[in-house]
Every structure is written in C-alpha cells, then in structure tokens.
C-alpha cells in the first residue's frame, strides 16, 4: 500500500518532473559545440577598438591547425588554439563582432588573462573593464596586463613553450620571475576605488632575439611597472623600481635583490634574500607637518658563498650597514619617482584617512599635490641571518 494518496503522489511526481526538466534547458550548451575563451587582447585602431580572442576548440586535431608542430614527423593529438578578432566603436560592439564570426557559442568563464595595449591604456581602461566586471561569469580573478606595443602580439608569441599564453604566463611567473604577482581585475577595482585612486599594474613586453638562430625564441618579459592614475596609464617605472614596489605590496618571502656591498665586493653585486614583514609606509604628523615615514625591519641572507663573512661582529655590522644604505637609496628613489608623478601608489591616503581622519579631511581635496610635497623619512633595520651551523666559512677542506 502506498504511503501517500494517489493525488498527492501524482502531484509530487509532477513537481519533481517540472524541477528536473524545466530549469537549465534554455541555458544549456553542449561541450563539443562551444569554444573556450582563454585570453583576450584589446588594442585601439584609429577611433575603433580591436578585440582579439584566443580560443580553444574542444576537439583535438592530429597536429594540424594553428599548432606549431606541423613539422613533427609523428602526429600527436593537439588541442586547437586559434585567434578571432572583432572591431567596433565600443568594447561591446567589438565583442559582438568577433562572436558573430565564431561558428559556435563562446564560453568565457575560463578567461585567464586580458592584455591591454599601452595606447588603449593611456586613454583610460575603465570602459573596457566595466564590461568584464559586470559580466555574470566570475571574471574578477582575470589577470590584467598592460603591454608595451600591440596587445595582440602577446597572443601570437613565437615561442613553442608559450603557444598557450596563459599556461606560459603562469609557468613564467612561477619559475622565471620569483616574487612577481600579476595584478587581477579585482586588485585593479580595489585600488581604483581607494582614496588615492592610483596604482601599479603588471606590464609585459616581448623581447625579440637579436640574431636569428635555431634556438632563439621570442620571450615574454613581465614586471609590475605600469603606473596608473585612476584608469589611465601615465608612465612606467623602471624594472628595478618595479622590483622594489613588489617588495612593498606583495609577499616577499622569495624576494631577492642584487645590491652593492662595498666592504666586501666593491665591483660586484651580492644577492640578498629577505625574510620578514613588508615595509610600512604612512603619512604621520610631525613637527614639520605631515611626513612620509617608511619603516622596514627584515632579516636577510646572502645567496652567494658566504664564506667571506666572518663570525665577527664588526664584519656583520658593516654588511648590515651596507644593506641598510643600499635599501634606503633604492626605496627613496622609488618613492621620489611616485611623488614626481603625484601618484600615491602605496595608498598612503587610505591609511591617513583611517589613522588621522581630521588631517585627511584637511588634505583630501588636494591630495596628489600634498603627496608630492611630503618630506620623506626612511628607517631601515636589516639584520644578517647566518643560516649555517658553522661559525666561519672554513668548515670544509678539499682533498
């Protein structure tokens, strides 16, 4: 005997059928009938926007198509990557244009990286990013990279190791450029809406081989150097400044700097590995008025053979002093550059707003000017960490 009456059971069955059948049938796309969007580039061509998409077809080919292994004698099944370009007066029009050229539905939920050309970035990138931030696909963690030269070139990099640019970038960042974190769309939005409204974004450039050789390949060089005010690119930091900026804002357990240490190697640079908290930079009230104060305490070790460093207090103090001076100079140079550009990329404004809101209310109307005039006070406390068990470098003897 049924535990429910026939009418009740029929009603429940009907409800379940509706639930199983109705939801989703409109929104479904067969996997083998779509292209997967992996990377996109945005360039300006005259008064138009050109959007190029790197797409992945879900079928595999036997080494044909756009893959770089056409000369291979043994045909291996390969995923098919290809590019489609669309143009229009707005980002929506350009995207609509390239979608109309693709014979299949394009799924963009796996979009990993967005390259924007230097020219487009100088005119302001928010109109482009607005399209991505409002999208129902979760695109907040998309990498945002400003390119020196045309952005489309990044998708056609002639390097077999990086033909799929996203994987190439990830490997490059993980293995090649330690300490670099690529900025994401989410990072951009957070800084764009901060009190200072300025920030540094990741930039990339292609390094072409000097002479045409068999083994020479085009290389992608990335660094965090694109200086932005609101959504406009205003200039680039030097690569060294970019490295020190990373030190400020990112996890630096893997950060290493080549520095000059005159007491030991007057002609050469030693590489020091850092360990400790990121430095703090803030505007504090002093007798001279608001002052930009940088405080940094860290341990370091020297990556080269440290046998020359004797367990002598005088030697170690000299080394620490040398690192202190070197660091202070580099940081001063970086901060002076941002002050010249009137760009508070360290977001000192937000911290001032939090810690001294009355002072902030006085200066907020003219903050870029105020920031550029702030006197600088740097306090570095570097401590040498001798990680070896021996007290001197004479612990081994070659036979």
């Amino acid at each position: 005997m049924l535990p429910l009456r026939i009418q009740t059971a029929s009603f429940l069955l009907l409800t379940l059928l509706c639930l199983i059948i109705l939801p989703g049938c409109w929104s479904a796309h067969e996997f083998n009938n779509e292209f997967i969007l992996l990377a996109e580039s945005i360039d300006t061509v005259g008064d138009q926007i050109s959007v190029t998409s790197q797409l992945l077809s879900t079928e595999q080919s036997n080494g044909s198509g756009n893959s770089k292994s056409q000369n291979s004698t043994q045909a291996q099944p390969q995923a098919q990557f290809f590019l489609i370009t669309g143009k229009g007066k707005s980002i929506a029009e350009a995207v609509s244009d390239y979608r109309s050229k693709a014979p299949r539905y394009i799924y963009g939920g796996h979009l990993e990286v967005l390259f924007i050309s230097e020219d487009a970035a100088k005119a302001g990138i928010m109109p482009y990013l607005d399209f991505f931030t409002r999208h129902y696909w979760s695109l907040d963690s998309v990498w945002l990279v400003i390119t020196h030269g045309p952005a489309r070139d990044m998708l056609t990099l002639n390097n077999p190791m990086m033909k799929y640019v996203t994987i190439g970038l990830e490997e490059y960042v993980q293995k090649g450029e330690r300490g670099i974190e690529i900025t994401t769309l989410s990072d951009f939005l957070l800084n764009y809406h901060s009190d200072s409204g300025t920030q540094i974004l990741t930039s990339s450039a292609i390094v072409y081989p000097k002479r045409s050789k068999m083994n020479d390949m085009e290389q992608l060089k990335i660094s965090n150097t694109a200086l932005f005010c609101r959504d406009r690119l205003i200039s680039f930091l030097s690569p060294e400044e970019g490295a020190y900026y990373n030190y400020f804002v990112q996890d630096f357990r893997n950060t290493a700097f080549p520095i000059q240490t005159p007491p030991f190697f007057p002609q050469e640079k030693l590489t020091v590995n850092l360990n400790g908290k990121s430095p703090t930079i803030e505007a504090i009230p002093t007798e001279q008025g608001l002052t930009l104060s940088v405080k940094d305490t860290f341990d370091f070790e020297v990556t080269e053979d440290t046998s020359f460093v004797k367990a002598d207090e005088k030697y170690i103090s000299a080394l620490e002093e040398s690192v202190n001076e070197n660091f202070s100079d580099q940081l001063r140079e970086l901060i002076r550059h941002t002050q010249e550009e009137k760009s508070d990329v360290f977001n000192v404004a937000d911290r001032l707003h939090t810690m001294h809101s009355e002072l902030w209310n006085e200066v907020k109307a003219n903050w870029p000017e105020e920031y550029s005039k702030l006197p600088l006070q740097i306090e570095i406390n570097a401590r040498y960490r001798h990680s070896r068990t021996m007290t001197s470098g004479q612990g081994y003897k070659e036979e």
Partner: protein
Amino acid sequence: MGQPLKISAQQASALLVTLILSTGVLAAPSFAIISSGRGAWLSMLIAALVAVPLILAYSKLATFAPTLFLTERLILLVGPLLGRPLSLGFSLFFLFSSSAVICIGGTLIQIIFLQETPLEVIIAGLALISLYGAWLGPQTLARLNTLYLPFLSLTFLALFVGTLSNPHWIYLWPPLDLGLPAVIAGSIPTIAWICELSLILFMSPDISNFDTKSWRVLLSAGLISGGFFILITILALVAFGPVLAMYYNFPVLQLGRKFGTNIRGFDALILTVWVVGAFQKTALWLHYPIKEIGYIFRLQNHKALLPPMIILVSIIALGAPFNIIEWQTFNKTIWPSLALGTFEGVIPCGLILAWLRYSQRTKAGR
C-alpha cells in the same frame, strides 16, 4: 512510527536563524555599506541591539496562550472585530513578503546560473518547491534545516578564510566617517530583517514546551543572526573597502568571485546553498499564513488553499519589478518601512499594550 507533531525549541530557533540569514546575507550588508560606508559594521551592531526589545515583545506575545492560533490570541487581546482582520492582515503580509523573496530569488538565479531561461520558468520552479515545503510543514522543514545549517555555516567559513588571506583592516575605521545619522539609517533595513522573527507569533502552537521561559529561543536566534550580519559586513568591508563594496548589489556573494584562478565560480556554489535556505523561508511564510487563513475562514483542510495561493504569490512575483536595481530600492526603502511600520514594529508594540491591559483585567477579575 510517525514523526512528532511538534518541533523542539532548538529546532524553532535554528529555523528562525535560517529564515533571517538565507536572504539577509545577500542584501543587508549592501544597504548598510551604501548608507554608512566604513561604519556599516556599527550599523549592524546597532541593528542587532535595537532589535532586542522588539524580539522580547514578540516573545511575550508568543508565550501568551502559546497553544492557541494567532487569531484566537488576537481576539482575546483586542476583541473579534479587530482581532480577525489583524490576523488576516498579518497573514497577507507574510504571503506578500514570500512573493517578494520568490521574485528576487528568481532574478538572482537567472543572473548567476540560468541566463537564457525565462524568469517565469524559474519563478514557477521556486514557487513549486516552496509549495512542496509548505505542504510538508514545519516538522519536515526543521529536520531538513538540521542538515542544512552545517552547509550554511561552511559557506561563511569559506568566505571568512578566503577573505582573510588578504584583508584590509583599515577600511573598518573611522566608523562615524559619514556621521551618526548615516550609521543609524544604515541599520534600519537590517532591523527589519532581524524582526522577521515576528513569525514566531504563528509558530508557537507547533513548538513543544513553549512557555514563559522560551524567550531564549527568540533572543538566541536574533543574536546569532545579528552576529552573522556583523561578521559578513566586516568581511565585505575588509575585502572591497567601503567604496567598491557599495557598487556591488550583493557584496558578500561577490567575495566568492575573487577566490583566485583555481576556484572559479565559487559564488555559484555558495548561492546554491543560500537558495536552499530561501526555499525554507518561503515555505514557512506560506505554511503559517495559509494555516491561519484556513482557521479564520473555518476551512476543514487549510492545505486546500495552498495551490490557489501559490498561483497568486507567483503572479504577484511576476507582476513585480524584475530589475535588481528596482528590487534594491524596494528592499532598502519600501519593505523596511512597511514591515517596521506595521507587523514587525508598530502593531506588535500596540499588542504589548493590549496584553498589559488584558493582564491587569485578568488580575482584577481574580
């Protein structure tokens, strides 16, 4: 062996937490952040504290003759001429509120999951699930909720851990950045959300051993919900800052979108869990009002009202504004005024006065 006819006080408390959080978690932080910026967490704290006297008022009204239907209790307090229309109005208020939840839930599901599915189909699906829950009743919903609450807590834990990987604590201070009036204004929608606990006036006959000491049931539900509201608002602020967070209609859900390249679409998973909670909410909001309407009109089987009522609720949901921005305006301005001005604020306070008069009369009679 059949299931017990009543739910325990703890189950009632858990159901009420789900009732508040399942929808409040989405929208309440947004309203507070828009009004009070860095002071949104303070708005939430004020909301939780201001709601306490109202919660105690509901508790007093619910524990007065707790085995009687709401209509019977209102007749005792204010007489049949006012008691019956008041009870009917209370029921229709919750039916209207459930249509609002179904509509906004449908719109949200369309945006996050099913972009090409017509809204009518999604609303019909939600209405059918709610109907099924209302049909099964609070005993089944309470047991489902026991399974559900750990998942709800897990979503908060995941957001908590994800956000704390890179928090910006400076955005929590100064809380009075936009002034005290802004902070108080930001707390009003959340007070209305917490005061959804007024449903207890309908629920009390279904709770076993619900006596004068049962104010703890309601107070614990209110304080737990208030605590979660404060927590999620802090998460949204330290992740996005006050300016960016106010641009998001659902800032807490947005947290799930910035987890990193390896966990794409985590927001969809979180929303799935929250939608299950919203279904329990609408099921409760359908079950009790319809049961009460059945009693007012002396129907033998109140469940016969469920199919026509769900059609009515769906039509209201479909006829309502379909744009998220319009719903934001409704939830931020119209609904809190409607709720606190009537069945969540003013009327329960009036009923407390009626109860005091009734108590004095009873004592004098003795």
